[in-house]
C-alpha cells in the first residue's frame, strides 16, 4: 500500500477505538505493512489532520492516539450537551413508567409491590420529564399520592389517547416464545 492508502485506515482506527489506540495495535490491524512504514504514516496523518482548520485533533495521550475536540470549542459543546434532547429513558425509569401507564392511577407503595424495588428516583425523573403527573390522593391510610401519565407522555410515545396504548394481548403472540 502507498502511504496515502495507509493514512485513512489509521484515521478510521483511531476514530473507532474506545481507548487511546497504541501504535502496536495499529500495526496488528494493518499487519500486511511494516511497523516502520505505519509509524511514519501515522505521524504524517497527525500532521495533516491537525494542520486543518478543524474542531477536532489527534492527540497522543497515555501511550496511545485519540481523536478529540479542541479545548477552544468547549463552550459551544457544553451549550449543546446541556440542551441535548433527552427523549430516552433508563431501564428503571422505563419499567416504572410501564407500571404507571398500565396501572394508573397508582401510588408509590403499589409500584414498589409490583417492581419489588423502590422507585423513588425513577419517579423523580419521570416527574421532571413531565411524563407522569400526580392524580390526587388515595383514600387509604396515609393518603398517598396517586400518579398517572401526562399529555407529554402521549406526545412522546406517539399516542392519540390512552386507549391507543397497546396492551399485552396485542403482543401476546410476539412476546411469548
Amino acid at each position, binding site marked *: 500500500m502507498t502511504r496515502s492508502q495507509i493514512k485513512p485506515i489509521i484515521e478510521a482506527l483511531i476514530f*473507532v477505538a*474506545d481507548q487511546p489506540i497504541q501504535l502496536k495495535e495499529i500495526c496488528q490491524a494493518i499487519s500486511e505493512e511494516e511497523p516502520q512504514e505505519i509509524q511514519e504514516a501515522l505521524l504524517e496523518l497527525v500532521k495533516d489532520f491537525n494542520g486543518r482548520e478543524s474542531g477536532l485533533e489527534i492527540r497522543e495521550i497515555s501511550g496511545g492516539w485519540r*481523536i478529540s475536540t479542541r479545548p477552544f470549542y468547549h463552550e459551544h459543546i457544553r451549550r449543546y*450537551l446541556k440542551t441535548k434532547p*433527552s427523549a430516552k*429513558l433508563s431501564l428503571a425509569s422505563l419499567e416504572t413508567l410501564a407500571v404507571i*401507564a398500565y396501572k394508573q392511577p397508582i401510588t408509590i407503595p403499589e409500584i414498589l409491590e409490583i417492581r419489588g424495588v423502590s422507585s423513588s428516583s425513577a419517579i423523580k425523573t419521570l416527574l421532571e420529564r413531565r411524563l407522569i403527573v400526580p392524580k390526587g390522593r388515595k383514600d387509604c391510610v396515609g393518603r398517598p399520592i396517586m400518579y398517572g401519565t401526562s399529555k407529554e407522555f402521549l406526545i412522546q410515545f406517539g399516542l392519540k389517547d390512552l386507549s391507543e396504548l397497546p396492551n*399485552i394481548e*396485542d403482543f401476546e403472540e410476539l*412476546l411469548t416464545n
Partner: protein
Amino acid sequence: MSVLTENSSNSAKAPYQIKLEIFEGPLDLLLYLIKKEEIDIYDIPIAHITEEYLKYVQLMQELDIDFASEFLVMAATLIHIKSKMLLPVSTTELNELENVEDPRNELVNLLLEHKKFKSAAEMLWSRAEVEQGVFTRAPLESDKENPEVAATVFDLVAAFKSLLDKRKEQLQVEIANDKITLTQKINEIKNLFKTENKISVSKLFLKASSKAEMVIIFLAVLELTKESIIGLLQTETFGEIIAIKIHDTFTNKANN
C-alpha cells in the same frame, strides 16, 4: 417453510434429485413455479399452474412438512379461478369483451405486488450490507450525561410483561417455599401438644400469615389425624372443631 422438491426436468427417468427450496408463503411458491416453467406472469396458464401447485402441496403433506394454512387457501383460490375460466362466455358478454374481467387479474396483481416487495427487500439487503461496514466513534465520557435506552410503546409493554412474569415466578417460589414447611408445621403442632391436650383448630389457623400457610396448616392437621396422633372432635353441627391428643408416646418420638 422449507420443502424438498424434486428436480423437474428429468424426474421420470433419473432417480429423484432432491433439493431444498424455501417458500415463505403461497405467493412465493407461485412465483417460483412461474419462473421455473418460464411462464408469462400476465398470461398464466391457470390449469397447468394449478396442477403444479397442487403437486407441491401434496408433496408437503406426504413429507409431513408443517406448512401454513395459507397454502390451502391459495389452492382453493386457484381451483376457483380455473373453474371460472372453463365457464363458456355468453355472446352478450363477448360483445362487451373489454368489460369482462379476467378471473386471473386479482391473482396477477397480488403476484406483481409481492414481487415488487421482494425486490425492495433485496434493495434493503444491499443497503444493509454497505451500512454494516460503517462504524461510528466509540462512546465518549460526555455520552454518559444521558444514560439512556431508546424507548417505544413496545418497550413499555415488554417491560410491563416481564415484570408481571417475574411476579408470577415469585409467587410460585413463595408457594414452593411454603410446601417445604409442611414437615415444620407438623412438628410445630406436635410441639403445641406437648403442653396441651386439646386445641381449637380455628386457633391453629389464626397463626397463619397467608392463605398458603392456612392450606399448609390444614394439611398438617389432616396428616396428624391420619397418623392417629391427634383426633378431631366436633360437639355440635357447625360447632367448634377441637383437636385432641390421642397418641401418648408421640412426645417421646418428637424428642428423639
